[in-house]
């Protein structure tokens, strides 16, 4: 056992390109670390920002969004919406204290298995360098999901003392 931090990364992939690229990588026996959990969507444009926020809230350390190259969308131009959403999410997440490097947008066609793997491996290393996010643990420390009759923790009192 080693003490290296293994990040949990949720990857949203498009049915027509990046999911097939990951599939092609597998068929070609190209290995990639199990840190990344791929979820297939019909299009990267199906990516509701809710999915990304929920992933972080439930304990993901990073989120990858992969779609068809600009101009190549199976649904004509939905990946452009993904591009705009991505920029908007990145800005909002930064204000909430989630580094822009924890979310990555990748364009990969069905033939680019090796390129996708390279991007995923690089992203895993980047997130590993940023360290764990632990959102569920923080929420629990502040009384979320706590037993309702339990006395709220004294984190506040402690923080108030530190200010003295």
């Amino acid at each position, binding site marked *: 056992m080693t003490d290296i931090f293994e990040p949990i990364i949720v990857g949203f992939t498009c049915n027509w390109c990046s999911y097939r690229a990951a599939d092609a990588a597998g068929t070609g026996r190209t290995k990639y670390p199990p840190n990344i959990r791929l979820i297939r969507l019909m299009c990267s444009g199906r990516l*509701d*920002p*809710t999915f*990304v*926020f*929920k992933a*972080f*809230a439930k304990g993901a350390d990073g989120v990858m969004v992969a779609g068809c190259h*600009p101009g190549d969308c199976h649904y004509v*131009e939905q990946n*452009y*919406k993904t*591009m*705009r*959403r991505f*920029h*908007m*999410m990145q*800005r*909002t997440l930064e*204000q*909430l*204290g*989630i580094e822009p490097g924890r979310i990555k947008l990748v364009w990969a066609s069905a033939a680019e298995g090796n390129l996708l793997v390279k991007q995923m491996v690089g992203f895993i290393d980047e997130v590993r360098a940023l360290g764990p996010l632990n*959102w569920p643990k*923080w*929420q629990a*420390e*502040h*009384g*979320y999901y706590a037993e*309702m*009759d339990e006395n*709220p923790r*004294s*984190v*506040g*009192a402690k*923080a*108030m*003392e*530190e*200010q*003295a």
Partner: protein
Amino acid sequence: MSDKPKFAMYWAASCGGCEIAVLNINEKILDVDANFDVVFWPLAMDAKVKDVEAMPDKSILLTLFNGGMRNSDNVAMAKLMRQKSQILVSFGSCATEGCIPGLANLSSMKELFDTAYQTITTDNPQNIRPQVKTPVLEGELHIPEFFPVLRTLDEVVDVDYYMPGCPPESHQIAAVVALVVDVLHGKAALPPKGSVIGAGGSTVCDECPRTRNVKTIKKFVRVQDVEVIDPQMCLLEQGIPCNGPATRSGCGALCPKASAQCIGCYGPADDVPDFGARLMTAFSSVIDSNDPAEIDRILDTLPDPAGQFYRFNLAKSLLRAARPAWRNE
């Protein structure tokens, strides 16, 4: 003591606007008085917490509770009111989703206290900070413990109904009062537990009379910077960041009708798990550019996205608070 059913209203971390909205139902307030015995309502009458503590459990029929859980006193009062009430309504945006006080969840407790106790407008040369326990000559003084993260009422106690709005519109309050009176007289049934009452399920756009076309914008503008606002056209189409597409209906689209953008005070519509995420989808769709550099330039015209998307909803959003608040960094 009369044998009328008992009514209470209490405030935690809130501004008091909700109680004003209740008083604003005008002569309908007489229906409240005719049908209820008001036993506890700090804004409107004199009663002490110990009076409430002395009441039997579940003896208050209806409690409207507004305000978020900012400190240990808020939580203690929420638990007390829950214990004494049959129906506890999370009343207004603060109790339901944190509202403006919930925006403090963007900052660490240190930042909050620095702002409150150590800025140029504060005369505090010894930099004294409040403490839960302070020894004085006469003994020990206690004040409530301040929590680094503001929570909503339903994170602390079981809530029967939610009534959104900052504040809830008076006609909606009057309708809810009328419903409860009907229930008392056996003329109506209570909605299922956990329902949102006094509001619609759809969005503000649904109630908005403005015309919507295919929206394409090259920049966002602040409403006060627009010289002439088209009275008929959708505000978002004019580049004014209107939160109508994600906001629950029920207000009658008051703000857009007056050429002011919806700021989202009624919270998320039905089936919207994260208010801000839904707005990001809506706003992204109207941006008229496919070029990353230009998209960035357009987004520069929306300088505070978290404030825009989570103005009322941060404490109830999926992430609930920013990292500095969780970690006190």
